[in-house]
């Protein structure tokens, strides 16, 4: 652990310095640019050659990705485990839906409100995390998740009770394709924030706190402030994911935010995608949702009625098995694949293997 402290996730400038001798040739850059353009074109082709509802599924995948990135901030960066993310997402979703349909504000105001309230609830939970350590804090998040699911989200004044709270999409973006654009923009913003966060002083401080709060404090890192900061960031991401979730479904009810439907799948996506591996997380969110979409079609070819009826469950169970295998054999998850590609795109030579990700120690949490 001490070795990683000496070399925290390297800031871009430092990396550029070390790799200066191996800068890609113009042809190399062209290849990289070509790959990016090709990926973008394939995405666009997919969106426009398919019916609208496929875009709706993509929007769901983007929401899942943002939610999993939120969990990644807690588990991956701050070393805190959350098993109550249904509360995080639900608070954002119901806040946004309430602001849109009860306060008659625009979707965008709802999105911002969802992000703020999502951040605030996370900071309050963070205050508890400062006092309750490690594994025990996981229990607090679990209990908090159930308070959201069973109490707050069923409170009719706030959430509409059984009828749910409508969350119409913004004008001009009511179709699935147009709404997907909003989700993609939000994901891009979240990814950019996350990227800057990790590369900044805050990111290095968080890593120090994650490795050892005592050592970090000795180096002058304000452990309390950075822990709360991480909770706030995670809550803001979750709030954004929740607000997007609400308008993707256009109506949200308490039963949308259960432990089995939100907390567990989000955790799987984070773990299988790879802790601290943005690319892996986004990729697996996509795989997770598209798996549910296409598995029935595949099963139809195989005439397997069981899989057609149970696609969602099959994908979830398979992903759970993948999560266990990831934890045992490959703590970096899909990040093992995406990270080298990401580095290559940024101009480094292609080297397979992990660096600065979950690494061999996998998850770590304050004792």
């Amino acid at each position, binding site marked *: 652990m001490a070795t990683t402290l000496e070399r925290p996730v390297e800031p871009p400038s430092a990396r550029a310095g070390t790799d200066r001798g191996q800068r890609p040739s113009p042809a190399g850059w062209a290849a990289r640019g070509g790959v990016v353009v090709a990926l973008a074109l394939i995405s666009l082709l997919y969106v426009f050659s398919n019916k609208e509802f496929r875009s709706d599924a993509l929007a769901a995948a983007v929401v899942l990705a943002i939610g999993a990135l939120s969990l990644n901030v807690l588990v991956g960066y701050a070393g805190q*485990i959350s*098993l109550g993310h249904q509360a995080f997402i639900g608070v954002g979703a119901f806040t946004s839906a309430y602001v849109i349909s009860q306060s008659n504000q625009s979707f965008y105001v709802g999105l911002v409100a969802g992000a703020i309230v999502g951040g605030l609830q996370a900071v309050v939970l963070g205050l*508890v995390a400062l*006092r*309750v350590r*490690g*594994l*025990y804090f*996981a*229990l*607090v998040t*679990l*209990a*908090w998740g*159930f*308070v959201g*699911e*069973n*109490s707050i989200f*069923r*409170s*009719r*004044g706030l959430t509409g009770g059984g009828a749910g709270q409508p969350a119409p999409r913004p004008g001009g973006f009511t179709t699935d394709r147009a709404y997907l654009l909003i989700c993609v923009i939000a994901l891009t913003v979240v990814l950019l924030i996350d990227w800057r966060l990790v590369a900044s002083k805050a990111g290095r401080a968080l890593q120090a706190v994650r490795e050892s709060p005592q050592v970090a404090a000795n180096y002058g890192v304000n452990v309390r402030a950075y822990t709360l900061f991480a909770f706030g960031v995670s809550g803001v991401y979750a709030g954004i994911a929740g607000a997007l979730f609400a308008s993707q479904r256009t109506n949200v009810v308490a039963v949308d935010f*259960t*432990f*089995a439907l939100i907390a*567990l*799948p989000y*955790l*799987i996506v984070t*773990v299988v995608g790879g802790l601290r591996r943005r690319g892996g997380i986004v990729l697996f969110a996509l795989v997770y949702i598209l798996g549910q979409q296409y598995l029935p079609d595949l099963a139809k070819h195989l005439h397997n009625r*069981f899989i057609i009826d*149970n696609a*969602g*469950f*099959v994908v*979830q*169970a398979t*992903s*759970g*098995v993948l*999560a*266990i295998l990831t*934890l*045992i054999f490959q*703590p970096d998850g899909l990040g093992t694949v995406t990270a080298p590609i990401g580095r290559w795109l940024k101009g480094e030579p292609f080297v397979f293997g992990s660096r600065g990700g979950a690494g061999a*120690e*996998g*998850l*770590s*949490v304050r004792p």
Partner: protein
Amino acid sequence: MPGFVVAQPLVFGLANGAAFGLVAIGLVLIYKSSRVFNFAAGEFVTLGAFGTYVGSSVVKLPYPLAMVVGVLFGTAAGLATERLVVRPLNDRPKVTVLVATAAVAIVLIPFELMIGKVKPFPARPAIHGVGVKILGVYVSPQQMLIMLALALSAIGLAWFFGRTDLGLATLATSQEPTASRLVGIRLNRISLLTWGTAGFLGGLAGVLLPPVTSNFTAGFGTTSVLISAFTAAVLGGMTSIPGAFVGGIVVGIVQAMAQFNVNKLPGLHDLPGPNSVAILVVLVGVLLVRPTGILGKEA
């Protein structure tokens, strides 16, 4: 306080609490022996209920045999979790193992849903009848059965840990793993035994609890038993078996009291899910004020 109900929630709380206690003892056993938080425990419970349902309604076994099937389902799940998930992660950080046990629940819940769909399963009681009238409310035979099961399990475990070589070896392992191995105790065996016992207790709770409420749903062990059982274990200090026993009863009663009476408090008339709020309050309260629990020696 006018209008407060006491007797009825007391009965519900005792019976539910006994089931929480059974699961909590399993959590404590595992925590004592390997410092792992077992988030798969809830699904041991669901599998117990599921096994009974499959045994009695699908295979049409006589009810007592179906109950045995249920307990076996739970035990098998405990053993499989140890062998396939926990043992390969032996040298990893405990939080990795925690996430892995949660992943076991992630695998099991959709499996139950695939077989059973998102709908409730009927659960018929082992003994029919109204029961005995105590304090003006009736205690059903099923509720008495759960309390009996908890008492017998506690006595059995006390005997096991106090009187048998294997039990003493397990205790020794939890206190001094390295020294235990040096004197010839096989840690893997002990670990398997602990998880099997936890699975057995969870399965037993799953066999006994659903008939009280006449039905159960896929994943109910994780969504409505797990957090209560953990809170019970934390109340008892996480390492104390009698603590988990008492903690279970306390949590059961607190939850039932909250469920029946919180809406009579001013301003909380319309608060949904008071039992979930009560759990959070108790859990955070204990962890902040007295992290060693009520009966525990160390946390």
